[in-house]
């Protein structure tokens, strides 16, 4: 019963956050709703017995990706404001989508849901889906990462190094090329 309460709260947070992200007009508000949605998904991981994945979600997504998104919004002046002069003297354009784009999005979403339901129907048969009572420990995940999935682990470290160096180089302010343009 406790599990049902936590599941309902987390699922409500995740779904409400996701719906608010789609239908909000302000980009900063959308980022904050995304934060709520990610916290809700972390709660769902907890109900599934995946404590390490939930903690990783909190550290990486909430503490990293959302802050990164907010900084990028600040650096690109991309907030949707109703008055002409924004806080930083930049023009604001309606960037959050209009009725036409949302209609196209919803039509695509309906098609997608139909396809997904047909696909998932095959894997939902009762014999395959049985609930197990286990929760993973950090030690098990650590052992698995370093024995079975060592290649992916090492490649992901190289990937992260590349992403770090690449992002730092790409986003560096280029004074000389701006004066040429």
């Amino acid at each position, binding site marked *: *019963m*406790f599990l049902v*309460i936590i599941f309902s709260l987390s699922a409500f947070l995740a779904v409400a956050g996701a719906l608010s992200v789609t239908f909000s007009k*302000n980009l*900063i*508000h959308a980022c*904050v709703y995304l*934060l709520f949605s990610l916290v809700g998904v972390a709660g769902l991981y907890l109900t599934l017995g995946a*404590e*390490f994945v*939930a*903690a*990783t*979600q*909190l*550290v990486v997504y*909430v*503490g*990293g990706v*959302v*802050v990164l998104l*907010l*900084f990028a919004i*600040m650096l690109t002046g991309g907030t949707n404001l109703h008055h002409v002069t924004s*806080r930083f003297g930049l023009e604001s354009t309606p960037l959050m989508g209009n009725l036409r784009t949302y209609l196209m999005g919803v039509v695509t979403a309906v098609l997608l849901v139909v396809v997904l339901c047909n696909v998932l129907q095959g894997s939902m048969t009762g014999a395959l889906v049985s609930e197990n009572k286990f*929760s993973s*420990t*950090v*030690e098990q995940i650590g052992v698995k990462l370093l024995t079975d999935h060592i290649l992916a682990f090492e490649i992901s470290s190289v990937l992260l190094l590349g992403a770090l160096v690449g992002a730092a180089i790409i986003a560096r302010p280029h004074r000389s090329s701006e004066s040429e343009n």
Partner: protein
Amino acid sequence: MNETIVSYLGETLGLNFNWLGTLVIFLIASLILASFLALIGGLGTYAERKISADIQMRYGPNRVGPYGILQFLADGVKMLLKEDCIPRESDKFIFKLAPILCFAGVLASLAVLPLSSGFILSDLNVGIFYLLGVTSVVGVGIFLGGYSSNSKWAMLGGMRGASQIISYEVPVTLTILSVVMIAGGLSLNTLVGGQGAYPNGWYLFHNPFSFIGFFIYFIGSLAETNRAPFDLPEAESELVSGYHTEFSGMRFAFFALSEYIEVFVLCAIAAALFLGGYNVPFRLGGDGLLGQLFQLVVFFAKSFLLYYVVIWVRWTLPRMRVDHLMVLCWKYLTPIALFNLVGTAIWMYCFNGRSMYMILKHFLMASGQ
């Protein structure tokens, strides 16, 4: 802790709880802990004013109660009664949300504080990792507070505060990782239980790398809470109080209280990770309730000692410029923390995880015979 309380009540009083009773007990326990730590946060403001007065050779607050101890209550009442100004052009939803995010992040981190071996509110399997994640929410709150105030000073303070927090998370996380490597688990009971009660059993003196790591963790946690020489985002002379310029009354009290409680939480984690946590010398009191009380006293004594050092550092050192701050983090602390991590790994492999004291003892015993 929930299980211990439920089993204790079940044995002594013979009551049997269904899920609702367990939930109510858990809520009451967390409410007591949150109130107690909010009290510590409030007393922290009083302690800061008294200790700073002592350092500056003047009296601190000494009128409101005996030795001025009720000053924080008077401050609280004042903040409750202030007018709640919201700037007209601000983003109202974010303006109201930012202090709540800060406070929620700090309160959520109270769930894994190892007060004693029985009094952890929730002994998560991934305790210290969860703590790292939740203290990042405070950074988001600071940034949103600075952004939503619609003022240049607040925006600058918010961006500097958030970038400072996310930068200093890197050496703090690496240092905590090296301690986790020594202990062998992420749960806080494992981390504290692996240490002894006397200084030779502490992780501070386990190997030279963790000794350096303690200072890196301490400096990093000073920067994470925007405290001490790193308080540029809330500096009064530079930024007119930075990201909480436009917040008044209870909203400002949320920011200030979350800062003081976060300082206490990080000092408590430093005491738990490096200074032996709640382990009592001579194992006084055994394992029953008396032992738990002794463990509580030891834990709070160590945390308050570190808290005193934090306040002492604030009133001793001048403020750092923001580019010096970033240089310190990325060019000095992060390489040292990485070197610590590798060094701890090599130490654990070469010496089978024994501390310096144990190696010395074996060496002396082996050479003595």
